[in-house]
């Protein structure tokens, strides 16, 4: 097959494939359906209780308590003890069933990015951002950046700062790469709104980090003098 058009044609078709996580997820579902992978409920431990009513009560308790904890974790903020359950248990589970529920991964990750931004706003509203150290603020910023990057990668990546979105009262010409504060508008998609809010939140965190750094240097200078 020497024809370059044909070669290119075939090459393009060969590029279509399952994403690695899709392949893993399908395999996992398959193995569960054929009975190879089971839910890890240790039935043999419950048999030793010898009382089926006790077994049933225990099962119900385990399901409702774990479900209750999981539910309570949903409202937790960074730094609270339930927060790791939210990010390391609830969210991975939700991510794994995303395809099954028909929601795209892009939508899921965008919603999660919005959640990360809401968490920072929640901390601010409760005046808890003031208690965070420089390192903790950096970590918050990093978590947000990572999640927004994920949402961007999975969604359409082209978001531009348009002249039409610039504040009307500003007479200065809009220069390329100029940082413009933009309010989300009706026509913006959810991802676009998240990206706009992301800029705002990261700027706030950066200001606090700069304050912490300035304080630290100031204390060090005073100590040295």
């Amino acid at each position, binding site marked *: 097959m020497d024809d370059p058009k044909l070669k290119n*044609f*075939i090459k393009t078709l*060969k590029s*279509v494939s399952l994403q690695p996580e899709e*392949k893993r997820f399908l*395999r996992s579902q*398959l193995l569960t*359906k054929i009975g190879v992978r089971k839910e890890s409920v240790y039935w043999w431990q419950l048999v030793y209780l010898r009382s089926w009513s006790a077994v049933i009560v225990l099962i119900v308790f385990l399901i409702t308590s774990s479900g209750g904890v999981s539910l309570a974790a949903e409202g937790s903020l960074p730094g609270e003890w339930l927060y790791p359950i939210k990010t390391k248990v609830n969210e991975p589970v939700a991510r794994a069933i995303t395809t099954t529920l028909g929601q795209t991964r*892009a939508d899921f990750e965008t919603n999660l990015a919005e959640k990360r931004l809401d968490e920072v706003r929640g901390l601010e509203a409760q005046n808890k951002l003031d208690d965070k150290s420089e390192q903790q603020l950096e970590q918050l910023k990093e978590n947000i950046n990572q999640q927004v990057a994920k949402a961007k990668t999975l969604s359409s990546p*082209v978001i531009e700062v348009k002249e039409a979105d610039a504040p009307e009262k500003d007479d200065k010409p809009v220069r390329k790469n100029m940082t413009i504060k933009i309010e989300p508008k009706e026509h913006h998609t959810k991802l676009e709104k998240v990206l706009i809010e992301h800029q705002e939140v990261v700027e706030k965190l950066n200001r606090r980090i700069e304050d912490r750094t300035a304080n630290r240097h100031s204390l060090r200078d005073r100590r040295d003098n």
Partner: protein
Amino acid sequence: MDLTSKLVSQFTLAYNQYADALFRYCYFKTSDRELAKDLVQQTFLQAWNYLQAGQKIKDFKPFLYRIAGNLVIDWYRKRKEESLDSLASGGLQLADNRQDPIDQAEIALVLKTLDKLDVGDKELIIWRHIEGLSIKEISAIISETENTVSVRLHRALQKLRDLLN
């Protein structure tokens, strides 16, 4: 290793090896990514049931393609009001949201060209030139002689060249 573990091992190996190829095949036939994934899963489940029933599979690849092909035909039959060709060419779902938009557009264009071929020619091109099946394997899938497959493939490739030029 007991019999079930051997079967699971064989099955998982087949999945790891052929899932991508089967997905591509189902996607090219249905133009629907989620449906293609479902069909892949159903294909492997049927293969598992076959293994569980104690049947031996001499060659996994053509066997899986035969199942997938039949599942696609069943799906088409369920949608009686639409023809095979119109289903394939209309309302194409993009290959993957995560791919570059330019790549997505290129794939869409290439698929539209592929759809202009007859169903049989399209299958031959997919099997031989995208999935790398041998003439022998293809003849096992479609129950034709190797000579017939070679001739049909040559003609299908010529038609594709004409479309591209």
